[in-house]
């Protein structure tokens, strides 16, 4: 009997040992990083920071839509029947509803924000004073603060009225007309954030960028990537600050930050001779401050949806340059002679942008770097700021303005004024996706000649102000988040 009792005791003991371990029910995946583990170490956070640049490279954002859609809306681009796959139509007609709006951009911006927040919220205590210093952590934080600010900035440009308009009309606009986008600081799966005002959204953007500027090591640049200009350094932050302040009408600050970038000596104006070769380069040089690095192997590679195929006359080729845009250039201007191309047989009479010729990874659905910030913009930002009263010692606004045509084989200006700045910005940044934002902040509407509106069906002219300058918030988001307020003017909102 004793033997039996012992036996039973032993069995029970074994069973208990097998079953009652404290972590018995914890089985984490070993082949994938859990979020917890990813964000637990410096190396993991470093990888997560690199990953946070991911969506910039998607066709829903910079490697196509962000550029093409804005050009189509701004009157630089148009459709035609020579090459018509049905693409690039929505922006051309300003045909947006809550069901059909720029949902992808909204999503990718917030995905990027979440990725940045995951890093920012987990940096504390990860320095060991030896291999990982506080500065290492600050550099990651600066990258993520930049990306957070940048993503919100991109979204408020699409879904909010221009800052300058809201600021000037604070007393007369309705609450809904003043709304920007939710500013998300922490990843919370249950959060239903409300929209901030445009004014507050910009304030938060500036605050993040200023913090990033103050903590980043001025010599820091992310190691191990194929394109250093695809990641954040101090000049990226300063260049974006210049743009943000310019868009806010904070002229002195816009000029100051432009000056910091120009005076850094890290960037150099392309000459007219260099200019044709800079598009389609493997990595940016000269003027490039920040760009999206295109690569076939990128997880976001859009293949046939990449901008290089859509703007290729031998590809989909839907969007061509408007006659109005082409007419702006002098015949000797390298931006005309080398900035546009015709179809292979030169039979259409249309011109396609040549800024995305493909870098030769594959043909015809090639890839391209897409430039986000470059030196020319700093000069033009400063020129515009000075014209509006900013003062930089020893700097002439007209010289800044002429810095551009003098490097493009074009005539220089004799006067610094709004129309010259407007003209030069349109010519210089055509097909880079920014002219629409200039029109918005200047309060200029879009006026399109009939020749620019081939195949157009509605909204040939879009006056300013109009509700159309803030695209509808996606209905899906309105449905899922009762704290979001729809943009006024659109019919099928909640």
């Amino acid at each position: 009997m004793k033997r039996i009792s012992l036996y039973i005791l032993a069995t029970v003991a074994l069973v208990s040992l097998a079953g009652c371990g404290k972590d018995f029910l914890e089985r984490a995946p070993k082949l994938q990083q859990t979020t917890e583990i990813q964000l637990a170490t410096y190396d993991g956070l470093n990888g997560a920071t690199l990953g946070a640049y991911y969506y910039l490279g998607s066709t829903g954002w910079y490697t196509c839509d962000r550029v093409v859609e804005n050009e189509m809306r701004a009157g630089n681009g148009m459709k035609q029947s020579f090459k018509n796959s049905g693409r690039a139509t929505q922006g051309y007609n300003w045909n947006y509803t809550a069901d059909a709006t720029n949902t992808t951009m909204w999503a990718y911006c917030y995905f990027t924000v979440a990725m940045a927040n995951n890093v920012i919220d987990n940096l504390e205590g990860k320095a060991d004073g030896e291999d990982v210093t506080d500065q290492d952590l600050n550099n990651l934080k600066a990258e993520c603060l930049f990306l957070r600010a940048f993503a919100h900035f991109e979204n408020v440009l699409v879904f909010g009225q221009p800052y300058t308009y809201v600021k000037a009309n604070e007393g007369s606009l309705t609450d809904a007309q003043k709304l920007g986008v939710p500013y998300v600081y922490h990843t919370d799966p249950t959060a239903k954030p409300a929209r901030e005002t445009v004014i507050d959204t910009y304030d938060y953007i500036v605050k993040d960028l200023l913090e990033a500027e103050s903590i980043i090591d001025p010599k820091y640049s992310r190691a191990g990537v194929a394109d250093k200009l695809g990641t954040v350094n101090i000049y990226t932050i300063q260049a974006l600050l210049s743009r943000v302040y310019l868009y806010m009408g904070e002229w002195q600050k816009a000029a100051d930050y432009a000056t910091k970038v120009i005076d850094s000596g890290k960037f150099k104006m392309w000459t007219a001779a260099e200019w044709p070769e800079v598009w389609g380069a493997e990595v940016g040089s000269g003027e490039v401050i920040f760009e999206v690095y295109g690569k076939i192997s990128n997880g976001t590679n859009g293949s046939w949806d990449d901008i290089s195929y859509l703007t290729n006359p031998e590809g989909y080729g839907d969007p061509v340059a408007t006659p109005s845009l082409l007419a702006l250039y002098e015949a000797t201007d390298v931006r005309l002679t080398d900035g546009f191309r015709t179809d292979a047989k030169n039979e259409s009479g249309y011109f396609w942008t040549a800024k995305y010729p493909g870098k030769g990874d594959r043909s015809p659905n090639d890839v391209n770097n897409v430039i986000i910030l470059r030196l020319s913009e700093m000069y033009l930002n400063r020129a515009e700021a000075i014209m509006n009263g900013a003062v930089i010692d020893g700097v002439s606004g007209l010289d800044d303005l002429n810095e551009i045509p003098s490097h493009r084989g074009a005539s220089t200006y004799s006067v610094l004024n709004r129309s010259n700045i407007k003209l030069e910005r349109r010519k210089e940044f055509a097909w880079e996706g920014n002219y629409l934002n200039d029109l918005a902040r200047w309060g200029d509407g879009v006026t399109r000649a009939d020749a620019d509106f081939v195949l157009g069906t509605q909204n040939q002219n879009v006056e300013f102000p109009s509700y159309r300058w803030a695209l509808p918030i996606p209905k899906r988001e309105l449905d899922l988040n009762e704290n979001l307020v729809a943009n006024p003017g659109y019919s099928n909102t909640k």
Partner: protein
Amino acid sequence: MRKFKLFLATVAILLAGASAFAQNITVKGVVSDEAGEPVPAAGVLVDGTTKGTVTGANGEYTISVPSNASLRFSSIGYKDQLIPVNGKTVINVTLSEDATKLEDAVVVAYGTVSKESLTGSVTTLKSDEIASAPVTSVDKMLAGKLAGVSVSQGSGQPGSTSTIRVRGTSSITAGNEPLWVVDGIPMMASDFRQLAAVGVGGGSSSTFLNPNDIESITVLKDAAAASIYGSRAANGVILVTTKSGKSGRARFTARAKYGVQQLANDNNLRPLNGLEALEYKRTAVINAGKDPDDPTGSMYFPYTLLENGTSNWYKELTRIGSLQEYEVNATGGTDKSSYYSSLAYHKNEGVYNFLDFQRFTARVNADTQLTKSLKTGARVNLSYSDSHSPQMGSSYYINPQFAMWHPLPWHKVRNDDGSLNYNISEMSGNNPLGVGNDDYNDKEYRLQGSAYLEYKILPTLTFKTTNGVEFLFLESHQYWSPEGSKAGREATAFNIWTTDIRYTTSNTLTYDQTFGDHHVRAMAGQEAMTDTYKYLYGYSPGVDPQIPYPTTAPAANDQVDYSLVEETLMSYFGYLEYSYARKYSVQATLRTDGSSLFGSNKKWGTFYSFGGSWNIANEKFMKPVSGYVSQAKLRASYGVNGNNNISAYRAYGTYASVANLGVANGYAPSRPANPELSWEKNKTWNLGLDFGFFDDRLTGSVDVYNRLTTDMLLATQVPYTTGFGSNTKNVGSIQNKGVEFLLDGILLRKGDFLWTAGFNIAFNRSKVLDLAGNEFLTPSDSRIDDATGVRITEGRSLYTFYLRDWYGVNPSNGDGLWWAEDGTLTNDRTKARYIYYGSPEPKATGGFNTSISWKNFTLSAYAQFVAGNKVLSSNSYVDDGYSLTANTSTAALNYWKQPGDTGVTPKPVAQNPGVYHSLYSTRFLQDGSYLRIKDITLSYNVPSKVLDAVKIKGARVYVSALNPYTFHNVTALDPETGPLGNIEIGVHTAVKSLIGGVEISF
């Protein structure tokens, strides 16, 4: 593993220590059974003491006892007999078989109960019903036999598995297969095969079990019966009990069978022969406005194409399959120990070339009474299977089921020199017979073992611990030879190793007491399970065909993949049962399960059930009708159980590496954390009535149930501001309700003549109640990429077809016509409206069986039916002449020929711009009802007079026809489909078999 080894070692030592007692003599006699056969090793015990002896090999015993004592004679499987000695010196005893005891006891979760006190809805199959049908695996045998248990085969491939649904489909994203519990241990019942299983759709595999080893199968259907399995009970539970040994000298049974098989094709569908195909093509070309006799045209189909003869691809690619099975088993034992052991071999060569399945199984079940209060035993099953498949189920031209419909008959299987013809453009340079050079092979090794120890602490209180291990090793090998296709591809080897190891411990304390009219049974238990799955995959292109192993492939080309999945489960459970005067019973069960699969906030879930029954037949007021009503019992139950059948790690937020900025070491969130992830819940009530008339000559039952699935796991849209677009959440609900009816009767019993029959039918209706805001969902089936034409929509049957609305053929010109959105007819497919139209869920399922025996002959038959379901058949290969290069089937011949023709397919037009054959239209939706005769068996038991002479105890010879005929109207080889109602291209359809066999026991 160490725990298990130690346990086995301990059991072995204890076994060795156990021995019998012996005593001196005063009473002697012989113990025999009703047939006069001596019963060896029967227990002879002085009643009320522990003194006793056992009978010898010839049933004789001698024992010394006080003359006023009583002797208790006992043997496993017989009723005890108590005989006062009263001074007698010779006591001969005849033991009668304990048949009633076996019949009344029903195996249920964690024990057996008398049928009288059962409160839940269970349905049972006994060994004789199991063994009589010569099927390959247990799951197949369940089809049509159990009310409310729907079994669809989905594939006629040897070694294929089944899709089993108990009372409908209850989940969209979690699994729907029932839990299999074999001898008290929940088993891995999924098909692990990596290569041979392509196209074998079902999720329940029991090929590792020898059907003849099974004593009984109980299916627990409602919450009262199943809820004690907690988070795994929602889809029902299949309890399999294997045979225990019977005491006595060793008895052997040997079985052998052999059979032949062919494709079931009862509507005689086939590819067109040479002349038919040519004339069909010519008609299509002429209708397209071209000249088939114009050699310069692109549609040149002259009659001369037939001059060099044609091939019958259907015939060439199919063959007569064969099936053979050999088995020997033995059982025996003493009054304290018994064993059952079997060894079986099964081989099935398929009806397609290079398709086969072989299996060895070996089982030892042993039990021994160590002491009066201590019992131990073990159940060990070993199986090995070896499957080859030429990619059955795939839409590749090497799959003969798919391929045979494509080649034009004048493209021949072989060249004139006898070599295989690969020069067939419509087969992309393939020839299904070329697969003979390739290899798609799975070798699966499985061990399932469990050992128990049972300790009767008190006569009313029993502790039992059962510890099991299940081990699976699967070696899969795929080889592409350079000769296998026209292209002369690179010799490539794929090697996959899969292992799965599962440990289970189950420990219970059971209390069972009767006080007068009161009977109480209670149990408390604990279980734990760990399961580890690993997978290692190697892809080696460019191996040396002479040495087709990874070693000869350039190392730079090798690719390796790896998978690891771990799962644990911890449970505490119990039940309480009370019955009074064999009239009233109540029962409650409770289980709490903790699972590694779920979120940190929802690790544990609690499940319960209540049930009650009232035995009306035992009431006094029923006395006057007791001559007619022999059984009448009302049952009612309600309970909540769970479905944890989801992939592991879904609760964890994860990061995955992403490639950007020219490097691959960035990381991006791939899934949000979901600490609230939990089980789907099933709330079921059940009302049942069991009845019996005329001394149980007619018995049956009716059950009504309602099963509500809530907290369904669905991908739910979340605001993008959270960083994700969707997250899996416990939302949504569906309902299944139904009625089941079961009737068994003895139709005629006269002298040597016995005629019995049985019938069961079940009606289940599903309804989607809440999809958490999703307009609709599609069933996720990665293999067919949701291209099922089936939608899940609120307010409708769980699966409802959503298809283009086909009107028919325009009688005036032979064009196809659809209904457009505005209610007009259109021949433009893009304008066709989509409509919800019918469900693949049957309105009724069930079966019949009957058996007639006369003297030593028995003729038995059973049939299965499915009624009122819709199926979408792409199996007819009708394309209205669209393709110039592919053949079509005989279903295409009934086409429009002249104005006024109705009930026809559109007129054939080569490269038909209308594309009327586009599958997802109601045109191809058909009534999927069928009645399948599953088995007709004629058997003959050789009379003992004949056998005695050769010292054989029993012999049976039989001949069976399996699936001999199926009544259906579906344009396909066979109408049987999975739950989504898609008769898919390329899936191996059902086969019919003719089998003969012998069984000899000695």
